[in-house]
């Protein structure tokens, strides 16, 4: 058993999410950085689909039974980052809030157990599907020992805010003034504090509409840059609604989606059209 002693800013159970149900109104959800969670799982010998913990600004756990644990995501000095370690029964594992980045992924050999909802153990913060967010005092069970031994080697730290996020022109680029996409790619954007797993809200210049009128609600995907009437884009995260009524000017490249997990309020970021 694992006891949650402190849950940081937000501690949730996440796996690779529940894709495939968007037509029923169900967000994809899952780890914001799915690759980091898969890496942590590999290090402890779990299948990549196993559930782990997504910790915003650290967490503190008490392992009441011995366990093999790995942490990936934001760099940390509190544990051997990116390497499987064995903890004895009674051990306290404290992961301090990161200095750079925002989220850690904690994998435990056997995976975190929780009721599977539509094929996933992920907490969906928008629709309420999956387990509730974790609080101090919660106890977590792990699943059966996997067949594979713990993996060797180290995880590679995710790139942080400095490299520009790569975007492609989106479906409604023609709803904006002609130089809006170029402005998106040349301006500096800062992450607003209202950002979360649903979306990252950005501050920067106004991406002006080139036409009036209302768009009918249309399907969306994580990574879409939707622009409400105030002209400031919102990058959709894993818990974003499956339909939206504001035009999408650009869409993030698939490989850069996971980087959203490490952007903190106040961070400055850039985009590149590629």
């Amino acid at each position, binding site marked *: 058993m694992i006891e949650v002693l402190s849950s940081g800013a937000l501690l949730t159970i996440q796996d690779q999410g529940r894709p495939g149900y968007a037509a029923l109104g169900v967000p994809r959800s899952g780890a914001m950085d799915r690759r980091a969670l898969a890496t942590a799982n590999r290090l402890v010998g779990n299948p990549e689909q196993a559930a782990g913990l997504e910790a915003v600004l650290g967490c503190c756990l008490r392992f009441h039974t011995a366990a093999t644990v790995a942490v990936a995501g934001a760099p940390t000095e509190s544990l051997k980052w990116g390497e499987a370690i064995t903890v004895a029964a009674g051990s306290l594992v404290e992961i301090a809030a990161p200095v750079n980045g925002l989220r850690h992924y904690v994998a435990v050999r056997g995976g975190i157990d929780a009721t599977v909802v*539509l094929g996933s153990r992920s907490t969906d913060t928008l629709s*309420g599907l999956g387990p509730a967010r974790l609080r101090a005092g919660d106890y977590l069970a792990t699943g059966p020992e996997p067949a594979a031994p713990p993996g060797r080697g180290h995880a590679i730290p995710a790139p942080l805010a400095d490299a520009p996020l790569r975007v*492609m022109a*989106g*479906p409604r680029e023609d709803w904006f003034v002609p130089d809006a996409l170029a402005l998106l790619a040349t301006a500096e954007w800062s992450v607003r504090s209202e950002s979360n797993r649903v979306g990252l809200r950005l501050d920067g210049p106004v991406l002006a509409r080139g036409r009036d009128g209302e768009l009918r609600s249309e*399907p969306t995907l994580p990574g879409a840059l939707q622009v409400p009437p105030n002209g400031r884009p919102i990058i959709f995260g894993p818990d974003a609604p499956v*339909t939206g009524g504001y035009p999408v000017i650009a869409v*993030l*490249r698939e490989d850069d989606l996971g980087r959203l997990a490490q952007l903190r309020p106040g961070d400055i970021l850039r985009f590149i059209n590629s």
Partner: protein
Amino acid sequence: MRVLPYGERAVLIETETPLALRDALASAAGVVEIVPASRTLLVRFDPQRATAEDVAALAARPVPPASATVGELIKLPVTYDGVDLEAVAAETRLSLEEVIARHSSGEYVVAFCGFAPGFAYLTGLDPALHLPRLAEPRTSVPAGSVAIAAEFTGVYPRSSPGGWRLLGRTETTLWDVARPDPALLSPGTRVRFTRS
């Protein structure tokens, strides 16, 4: 019809017949997921098995007429005692009885789901009942509330904030993850409301 880019693994298709096109593309090679909306269709594909151009070529073929209209028919018993019923009657200049009669006489089709798991946007609402959303959304609408907004009607699957006008309520469970098909209403389902 227009095919618009949506990142590396999806396209958004503008079409007048999203459900018919959904049915036509459902078994196409490399298509992973199809999500309809009222005039668009999002098609996610596996980039190792298909390209955006492949999907566009498939979508350009003639589509058989909407087989979606032969979807399953669900009857939902409704108690018409919603808090907005009188205001709707006043704004539409209809009597309470006429509002209820018009809402419960139509046959509706689920165009798409969104907003919340199992929340279906039903098309086919009598034009006399087309009213904008409330200026100020409610912070909490009870589960089972039967409501209207613009050209749609729908049922809140669970308690949530909401800006639709409430006409009544149904006891039928719209969303239950313990069921093999958690959503009672999915795109293409036909719906009738009956007075209970």
